């Protein structure tokens, strides 16, 4: 069956495997972005739409500083700072001005669009060449890109494992888990939300900076849909982690699976592109994947106990009773 499709469309399996390494490298970068998203989505229980903007901000800041002759690591550090500030702003809009979570994120994201253009001298796209500039990571050397990506991801996972195990980190997790209880334990939940959003967006900006170097340019639209891709990575990672290692996963293990989720997601994209799907349809495809993965746990629970089922059972019993 598979071979028929392949032959019919004239696809070359060699091309597919040829593009896997680059796919893995990009997947790791999206996985790093997903680590950031994990903080808001899973730990803080805050759907943060800022990230679409911050991803581009990270790219824009990094590329502009590289063009100004900065060391790539220092440039990325500044990008992280820009992400921290963006996250803070979303947090303050929400906690100090009472704007709903989703809207706070959208407002910051939209304003970042203008700011990102301003950072790039009002150009939508700025290239940085690996031959003229020293980059931390580039698609010209895929093996070393993968290695660098894995090292960065490992360091971040270790740092997150440590931080969210500290008193402060556990206060952030408590805030997401039960705000009422957190206040009763003396936790300033507004401060924790701002802190969590800042850290999350700092990581997202970092991944944007890495991605810009990898692809050789920053684009004002490069973060569009980042939240959905990040979610895809988080959810695929969780499903895989549960399936393979079930309950044995600790926090670091779960984070590692988030990065693996990013890789799997991107390899699926590579396969889909190889099957000659129009790249313009990718966002549609990604949304469908995420919707399906989000829906499955709900539908599974629903199939066990739903009103419809209860209603059908009641009717059936009634009928049985009538027959007797």
């Amino acid at each position, binding site marked *: 069956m598979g071979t028929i499709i392949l032959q019919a469309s004239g696809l070359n399996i060699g091309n597919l495997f040829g593009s896997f390494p680059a796919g893995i490298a990009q997947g790791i970068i999206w996985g790093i972005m997903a680590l950031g998203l994990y903080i808001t989505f899973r730990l803080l229980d805050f759907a943060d739409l800022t990230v679409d903007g911050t991803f581009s901000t990270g790219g824009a800041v990094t590329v502009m500083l590289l063009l100004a002759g900065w060391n790539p690591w220092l440039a990325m550090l500044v990008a992280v700072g820009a992400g921290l500030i963006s996250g803070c702003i979303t947090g303050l809009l929400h906690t100090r001005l009472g704007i709903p979570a989703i809207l706070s994120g959208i407002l910051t994201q939209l304003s970042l669009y203008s700011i990102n253009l301003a950072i790039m001298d009002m150009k939508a796209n700025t290239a940085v060449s690996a031959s003229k500039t020293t980059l931390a990571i580039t698609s010209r050397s895929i093996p070393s890109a993968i290695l660098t990506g894995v090292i960065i991801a490992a360091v971040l996972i270790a740092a997150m494992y440590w*931080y969210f*195990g*500290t*008193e*402060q*980190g*556990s*206060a952030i*997790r*408590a805030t997401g*888990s*039960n705000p*009422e*209880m*957190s*206040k*009763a*334990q*003396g*936790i*300033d*939940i507004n401060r924790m939300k701002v802190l969590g959003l800042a850290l999350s967006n700092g990581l997202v900006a970092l991944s944007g900076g890495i991605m810009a170097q990898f692809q050789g340019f920053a684009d004002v639209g490069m973060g569009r849909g980042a939240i959905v891709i990040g979610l895809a990575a988080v959810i695929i990672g969780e499903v895989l982690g549960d399936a393979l290692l079930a309950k044995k996963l600790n926090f670091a293990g779960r984070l590692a699976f988030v990065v693996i989720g990013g890789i799997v997601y991107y390899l699926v994209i590579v396969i889909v592109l190889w099957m000659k799907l129009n790249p313009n349809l990718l966002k549609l495809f990604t949304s469908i994947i995420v919707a399906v993965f989000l829906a499955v746990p709900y539908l599974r629970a629903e199939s066990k106990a739903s009103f419809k089922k209860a209603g059908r059972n009641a009717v059936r019993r009634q009928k049985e009773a009538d027959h007797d």
Partner: protein
Amino acid sequence: MTDMLVLKNIHKTFNPGTINEKKALINLNLVMEEGDFLTVIGGNGAGKSTMLNAVAGVWPVDEGSITIAGTDVTGLPDYKRASLIGRVFQDPMTGTAASMQLEENLALASRRGKKRGLAWQISKEEREHYREELKTLDLGLEDRLTAKVGLLSGGQRQAVTLLMASLQKPKLLLLDEHTAALDPKTAKKVLDLTEKIVSRNNLTAMMVTHNMRDAIAYGNRLIMMYEGQIIFDIRGEEKKNLTVEELLRKFEDVSGEEFADEKSLLSK
């Protein structure tokens, strides 16, 4: 004797200036001495929870002052008062973080009112200490330190919340119908545990209940609330000798309301 809680001329009106306006607390005055275990009764909507929420700082009061153990807390939000107060809520879900481990919950509670820095959230000694404390609950929880609290039953969670409220000794323990969601047997167990924890730590406590018998049996002092005010305040020997019937008659005297109507509300 130090005064652990002083409520002076407290007023609280919800939705002022609207058709839903509700004067929930009207010129409320109350002084609790160190070691007082106060039970609070009153019909639905009498203002019992509102009084506890005012003390906890859920929202600011309109008028009056609140002093806990000599500290004027009137201008402080809840999380800034938390170092002085331990709370157990009616809903067992409210007092603990379900997605976190039992020991993590306890660690969060033992840092109530302290600065939360970059030290590891639980030390080895603490873990041993928690294990010992959990043993005293007699629920077998000492072997489940790393279990998610969401897996525990309602009664177990209330017991854990009680322990959490006392790990970092509070000046004042607030209990708002904390056994109302439990079955009678579990409720009794949690109540006895409450008494044990209060007396062992010599806590000052305020407990709202709809059960008149419990209100009489537990604590050294009893107040009855009606329409945002304290209409009855009794302590010591006099309280011990109270009967449910007497309480109901008192209520009828002061409120001038029909005995039969309120009986169902108060005695349950």
